[in-house]
């Protein structure tokens, strides 16, 4: 549905987007993740034909943003970071105007407006002036405007920015419910949002794509199959020794949780499942295995990791915070 190839946008001397490429399939929800100023908004503005790219191509539903902008615009619903609203219009009047400029035929205009109002739950403020609405309502009016013409593609720039927790949850639910019927690209710097709503994530930093995968895969890939947490009842040193003897284990760190139990943090070779071997090793030494758990890196950690270090792909993730009484292999 969306094909972006080698997209570059320069403003004078600064390069806001630098050779970005990605694809979005029909019905998919793609999360666009990156710190402020990473080039998310610029990329989205190019996709909505608001800005022309300096280099590269972007196609929406097969139409190039430079060659046939009107066709692209007809198929895209967009909310910029601050929803573009006329404060002196009432909600109904505003949606009516939007329907007109989006080319919704007059016969179905009222039905479409009603539908958008219902989906975004703004029915109780339809006669109010937009200038008097709260931030949450304004955001929803912006969303109503975007879905009004029932576009194939929805592009949402930070759709939950500035909302209260309840509204954030509602908005996420709404976005999720829109997925499937619409292809959605949403940008955010709030990480849980991505793992909650998106099927796939593109992490962008300083105008470049640094990672692209499903949230789960990203987590797995960055840790390898590696990180395990093993809870053992018994002597810490013995437990560490037992686990270390398992082939494929790279490092073990032990810390005593209580006089009897020990928690081991184990790092294993990527792609090698050592869980059963560890279990056997622990039990064969006469220690009790209490828990064995694969620990993924949270999206937050991946994000920080990818966007703060320059050689993101080459380096292993940074060590977890120092634990008490360390025994390192």
């Amino acid at each position: 549905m969306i094909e972006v190839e080698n997209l570059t946008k320069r403003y004078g001397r600064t390069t806001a987007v630098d050779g970005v490429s990605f694809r979005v399939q029909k019905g998919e929800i793609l999360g666009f993740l990156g710190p402020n100023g990473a080039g998310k908004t610029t990329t989205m503005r190019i996709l909505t034909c608001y800005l022309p790219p300096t280099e590269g191509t972007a196609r929406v539903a097969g139409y190039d943003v430079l060659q046939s902008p009107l066709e692209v615009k007809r198929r895209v619903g967009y909310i910029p970071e601050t929803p573009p609203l006329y404060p002196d219009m009432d909600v109904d009047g505003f949606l009516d105007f939007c329907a007109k400029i989006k080319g919704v035929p007059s016969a179905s205009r009222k039905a479409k407006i009603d539908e958008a109002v219902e989906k975004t739950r703004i029915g109780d403020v339809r006669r109010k002036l937009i200038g008097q609405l709260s931030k949450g309502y304004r955001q929803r009016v912006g969303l109503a405007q975007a879905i009004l013409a029932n576009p194939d593609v929805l592009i949402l720039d930070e759709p939950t920015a500035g909302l209260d927790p309840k509204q954030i949850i509602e908005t996420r639910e709404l976005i999720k419910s829109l997925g499937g019927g619409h292809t959605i690209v949403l940008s955010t710097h709030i990480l849980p949002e991505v793992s909650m709503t998106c099927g796939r994530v593109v992490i962008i930093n300083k105008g470049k794509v640094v990672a692209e995968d499903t949230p789960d895969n990203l987590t797995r890939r960055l840790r390898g199959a590696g990180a395990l947490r093993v809870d053992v009842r018994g002597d810490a040193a013995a437990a560490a020794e037992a686990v270390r003897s398992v082939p494929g284990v790279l490092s073990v760190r032990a810390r005593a949780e209580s006089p009897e139990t020990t928690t081991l943090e184990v790092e294993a070779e990527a792609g090698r499942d050592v869980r059963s071997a560890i279990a056997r090793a622990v039990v064969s030494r006469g220690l009790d295995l209490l828990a064995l758990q694969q620990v993924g890196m949270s999206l937050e950690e991946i994000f920080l990791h990818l966007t703060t270090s320059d050689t993101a792909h080459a380096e292993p993730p940074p060590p977890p915070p120092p634990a008490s009484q360390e025994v390192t292999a």
Partner: protein
Amino acid sequence: MTALRNVWAIVEKEWRHYFGSPIAYVALMVWTLLFGIFFYFAFSLFLRQSMMAAQQMEFGGGPKMSLNEWLIRPVMHNMAVVALFLAPMLTMRLFAEEKRQGTIELLATAPITDLQIVLGKFLAAAGLYGLMILAGLLNLALIWYYAPTPPEWKPVLTGALALLLFGCCFIALGVFVSTLTRNQIVAGILSFCLFLGVWTLGWADDPSAGPVMRALAYLGVTTHMEDMVKGVVDLKDVVFYLSFIVFGLFLAHESVQSQRWRA
């Protein structure tokens, strides 16, 4: 068809804004009030003059006084000055406000062309200005009601047409200036200065002046009003005004487009 509908949607939205805020009412009020005042003064002057003329008549002749010449023409000229002041009020926010509010992004990502947006905004302002002229003409209706020999109606119509075309030049230019900034006040002041500049070009109209001055004077918007206010619609004047308007809108369109490339 869709193009017309898009332009109309913009016009409708701008009108909703004009009449949803004090702008339209203030503009209409100032315009009709000044029209009335100028009309009153011109009328009393006309009465005094015609009284004197009547006295002279007793001693055998004197100039015949026409309402068109003594009443309608000076009022039209005065109103042109008022248009100079009011036009920036109508145009300054057209694009500046959209840029400040960020709503330009809504328009730019909707399936309408920049030309349709520019035309819609121009027609909205021109429409309101046309309404102002009509409201002013109500004063003149009084003459038809009371005057024993009504004045010629054709010069009144052509005078109104001149006023409309003349004002539309300002409006087209004002739409352009409004695209240059996100600050309404700046747009307003710049437009006014520009209008004043174009206006004063007409002052160079002097038969003894050199060719450069004559050419400049030709560009002055006021010089092309004279004949029309007298009741003579010369094609070259109409063409001048229309090309001026097209040029202003062309500048506005180019400005809107180029800003996207520079952004």
